[in-house]
């Protein structure tokens, strides 16, 4: 009898605590957030958000730009993500085209620079910060092969650089695509493709990821890697014999952006995250890694970046780039894909 009572008591206690646990869990909304942010940024970003909204828990799903985009598209009929926070705007535009984003104007959106927000009255996405292309130039390897330091995109087509330049494949890398789309916008389509024809002669290979050319340059596997500024500055800080070159014709760039995924059943929490993502405080946080952010007047200069970074950025037409993306990529592949990294 005694034993039975004890068991009953334990059972009661267990049920009670389970109910309690369940109610606690219910009080906390869990948001599934897809992102291509750098891993080391995730914790501080979530922490800053939780300081304002402690009852919303962020569950990160992180991967590189191409993969996150692929994942989102693959899950189109059965979306798993609630919010996207930190993905290339060109990718979000593709999602918008597929009618996968939930338009929402976060509180205070009028404070953002116009470049950093969807032009629609009820915007589908909001910008966070901009990252820009740059050349990673290995000074030691350059000396070994007698290569002068290039200063422009045009320089890269000179015969002296043959086989010493590596760039990312635009089909898989956001950085690669921003290069190609910026050349086409800067030089015009005909001249742009002509430029790439000449550049292609000098390219050793095209890599899958946008940061790899810079890593390869840092390791001396190549002398020049066409990559992006953030990576180059980081590697330089670690002691790689790199010089960052910002070609004088202008720099392609893309922005990291945030959006709500259509079909989410946690709309309130998702809206709160969007509100937070464009606050001044959040922009100050973005500025730790990026020289140009969406909130005017926030950005402070970052070491190894050019002081006039924003002036070098071309007038990038994202809508054009996103709508032409497929066409550009198939032309690009037909012309150059033989030299691509496997994958």
């Amino acid at each position: 009898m005694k034993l039975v009572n004890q068991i009953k008591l334990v059972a009661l206690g267990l049920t009670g605590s389970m109910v309690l646990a369940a109610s606690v869990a219910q009080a906390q909304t869990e948001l599934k957030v897809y992102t291509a942010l750098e891993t080391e940024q995730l914790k501080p970003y979530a922490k800053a958000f939780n300081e304002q909204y402690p009852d919303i828990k962020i569950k990160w799903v992180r991967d590189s730009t191409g993969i996150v985009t692929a994942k989102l598209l693959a899950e189109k009929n059965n979306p798993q993500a609630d919010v996207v926070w930190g993905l290339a705007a060109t990718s979000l535009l593709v999602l918008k085209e597929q009618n996968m984003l939930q338009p929402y104007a976060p509180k205070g959106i009028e404070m953002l620079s116009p470049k950093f927000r969807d032009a629609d009255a009820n915007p589908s996405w909001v910008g966070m910060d901009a990252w820009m292309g740059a050349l990673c130039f290995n000074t030691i390897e350059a000396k070994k092969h007698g290569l002068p330091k290039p200063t422009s995109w045009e320089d890269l087509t000179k015969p002296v650089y043959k086989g010493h330049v590596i760039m990312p494949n635009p089909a898989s890398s956001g950085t690669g695509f921003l290069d190609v789309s910026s050349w086409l916008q800067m030089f015009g389509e005909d001249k742009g493709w002509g430029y790439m024809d000449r550049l292609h002669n000098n390219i050793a290979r095209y890599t899958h990821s946008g940061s790899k050319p810079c890593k390869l340059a840092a390791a001396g596997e190549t002398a020049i890697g066409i990559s992006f500024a953030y990576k180059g500055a980081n590697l330089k800080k670690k002691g790689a014999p790199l010089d960052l070159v910002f070609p004088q014709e202008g720099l392609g760039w893309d922005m990291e952006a945030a959006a709500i995924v259509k079909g989410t059943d946690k709309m309130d929490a998702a809206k709160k995250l969007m509100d937070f993502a464009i606050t001044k405080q959040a922009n100050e946080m973005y500025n730790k890694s990026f020289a140009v952010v969406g909130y005017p007047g926030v950005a402070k200069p970052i070491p190894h970046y050019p002081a006039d970074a924003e002036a070098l950025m071309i007038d990038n037409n994202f809508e054009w780039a996103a709508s032409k993306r497929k066409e550009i990529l198939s032309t690009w592949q037909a012309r150059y894909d033989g030299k691509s990294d496997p994958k």
Partner: protein
Amino acid sequence: MISVWNRNVNPADTVRLSKDDYIQRGVILIAVAFLFFTLLMPLSSMLVKSLQNADGDFVGLVNFATYFSNPVLFESVANSLQIALTSTFIVITLAFLFAYGLTRTCMPGKKTLRALTLLPLFAPSLLPGISLIYLLGNQGIFKGVLFGETIYGPIGIVIGMCFWVFPHVLMIMVTALSNSDARLYEAARVMKASPVRTFFTVTLPSAKYGLISASFVAFTLVITDFGVPKVIGGEFNVLATDIYKQVVGQQNFQMGAVVSVVLLLPAVFSFIADRLVQKKQVAMLSARAVPFVPSPHKMKDRLFFGICCLVVSAILLVIGMAVYASFITFWPYNTALTLNNYNFEEVGASWDFYFNSLEMAAWVAVIGTAVVFFNAYLVEKGRAFEPVRNLLHLMAMIPMAVPGMVLGLSYIFFFNQPGNPLNFIYATMAILVLNSVVHFYTVCHLTSVTALKQIDSEFEAVSSSLKVPFYATFWKVTLPVSLPAVLEISVYLFVNAMTTVSAVVFLYSSDTMLASISVMNMDEAGNTASAAAMAVLILVTCLAVKGTHWLLSQKLLTVTQGWRNR
């Protein structure tokens, strides 16, 4: 369904069906259903996908037409075949020489040499790729060996493949060359045949089927491998990397499915051919054959010892370089040793990935062994449902012919369909475990069947007449007796689950990121040293597990297998 199968059964038998029979039939059906839902359904949803456009409408062979009219994509077919044929030729030659040394000469150090050749089995196929970059890349130690050719491309892929495929091929070769009849050699000697003539008329023919089988295995492994070309393929596209490029790089799932089908063809073809050849081999060795025992021959022994040592040093060099590279601060400018590359957090990876891999591999080993061995038991020792059991056996053979990437991709198509009740396992550890169990099913199935064949089926007959349920016989007799095979299967599954990249690359989520995949991702992002470090970690873990298994089975063998030697 049941009534259809019962038509073959004598009506008198159906009347006497006991509870045990029903249970067994139920279990057999469950086993068939398991492979149906984890193998056949995903594969068919992939086939369907290849015939659809992006919106999911049926478009017939349009995707295939697009594929074959695109010279860049189509070129990969030629590239894949070229790589597979070249690698197969090289690795077969090397493995034959090595196996010849092991079985037909009296060279010293056979056991050690043999053991060292197994090392590549314990590393992900990404490891040779990474190592070759350090050895032969633009900043490589032995860069000069290539005379200005680049390692990024066919040369690198072929070298990496040979390294990775060698142990698989060697195992088959050694078996093939061990099964020879000494009487034939005696006859050749009596008839004064020259050694060369003896080699071509006795040695080669007797190893013929082994050679053919090994060639098919090598060919399949090379054409379906993803790790080596991914790391070192440079501008050289092959089918396996095309699937990845289409799906992950360009979000073109239809084209990914098309390339998968294209890749499936040579794999299936070579698998069927191999099966047909193996069927012929059965009667090769008669009961009266006398095993060949090599006699010492100074020149020959030294020559083969030299060859084998060269091969083993190459293997050790590749592995050693990866280990060394994982401790270097900043190749090639700062070669001071450091542990920093193992601090994965610094490059956006994490030790959690390693523990995820351990967890997954453990689950695969436990669940996989249980499922595969029990299913094999049903196939081999079951009494009811002969046609269904044959079907089960046939299904168990399929995973061997399905490349990992194809299986992985088909899992996305099947399990992430809206409305699939199994959708909940998508993006969990469970789908990784399930996928790996199915991916490595065939070898385990064959091992189990071989082990079970050694046990007299009288056990089943006797226990059945004593009214002992079949599962009791399984638990009390079959399982303990087959313990060595069961252990071997579980280690095989563990090691493969630890090292695989191809199948799981489409299925992991951020919570279930695996060590092997992070090797690929770190290499992709250019963090080669950390990638090497993680690959070394996988290698060491697998070696430790294998070592433990070896010690354990020594102990167990003496305890449980005493009956084998009376």
